[in-house]
C-alpha cells in the first residue's frame, strides 16, 4: 500500500477546487544511485482516478516525466458540502493508494 494522498478540497461558488499531493519516488529508470553506481529501476505512478461521490471526475495517465511526490490540481462543478472526494493511484509495480475527503 502506498503512502496516503494529501488532499485539499474546497468549494468556491459552484466550482470545487482540489489540490492533491502524492508522496511517491517517481523514479524514471534513468537515475543512477550515487552510492551504489547502479541504475534505479522505474517506479512511477501510471494512473490517477479522481471521484466525486463515486463518479469519475477525471483520470490522469502519467509517464515517468511527472515530478517526484506528484502535485496535481483540478476543478469541477456540482460539489456540495458533505460530498465525498476520493483520489486513488496505481503505479507500475501494482502498488496503490486511496484517500478520501469530505467537502465542508
Amino acid at each position, binding site marked *: 500500500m502506498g503512502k496516503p494522498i494529501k488532499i485539499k478540497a474546497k468549494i468556491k461558488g459552484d466550482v470545487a477546487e482540489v489540490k492533491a499531493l502524492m508522496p511517491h519516488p517517481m523514479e524514471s529508470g534513468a537515475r543512477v544511485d550515487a552510492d551504489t553506481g547502479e541504475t534505479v529501476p522505474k517506479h512511477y505512478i501510471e494512473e490517477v482516478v479522481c471521484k466525486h461521490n463515486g463518479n469519475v471526475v477525471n483520470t490522469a495517465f502519467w509517464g515517468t516525466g511527472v515530478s*517526484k511526490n506528484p502535485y496535481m490540481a483540478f476543478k469541477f462543478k456540482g460539489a456540495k458540502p458533505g460530498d465525498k472526494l476520493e483520489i486513488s493511484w496505481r503505479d507500475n509495480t501494482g502498488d496503490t493508494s486511496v484517500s478520501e475527503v469530505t467537502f465542508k
Partner: protein
Amino acid sequence: MKLQRRALIRSLFTAAAVMAVPRWLLASRPDAAFDADNTASVVGDLFEGPITESDQVTLKVPDIAENGAVVPVTVSTALTDVESISVMVENNPTPLVAMFELSPQSVPEISVRIKMGESSKVQTVVKAGGKLYSASKEVKVTIGGCGG
C-alpha cells in the same frame, strides 16, 4: 433450453452495461504513446486528425525553469466539451508526460509538476468536441531534472 435462455439474458445485460458506459470512461492508459521517444510518434499514437494551434488554449509554464526536476505546468482552456488534456516535453527521452481525461463535470483547468531533462518546447494538446487544439512554449532549463 433454460440454461441457454439464461446465458442469452446474461449476455444481453453485459452488452447493455458496456454500452451504457460513457465513451470517455472507456479509454485505458495509452502505454505505447508513453513509451514513444519522439513527439511525432506520441501524436500519431494518441490522436487522429489535424491539430490546430489555438489561442483558446492557455499553457502556463515558466520561461526559465531553474530546477528541471520540478516545473509547474497549468493548462486551461475556454473551449467547451473538453475530453482530454495532454502535456508533452519535446526533448525529454519520452516526451509524453501526462494525459488527463475529463468528464463533462470537469472544469478544463489542470495543474501538474513535471520533469524536464533540458531546455525544450513544452506542448499541450486539448481534445474538445472531437477536435484537437494545441499551445506550446519554449522553456529554458538551468539544471536538468531527469538524471541524478
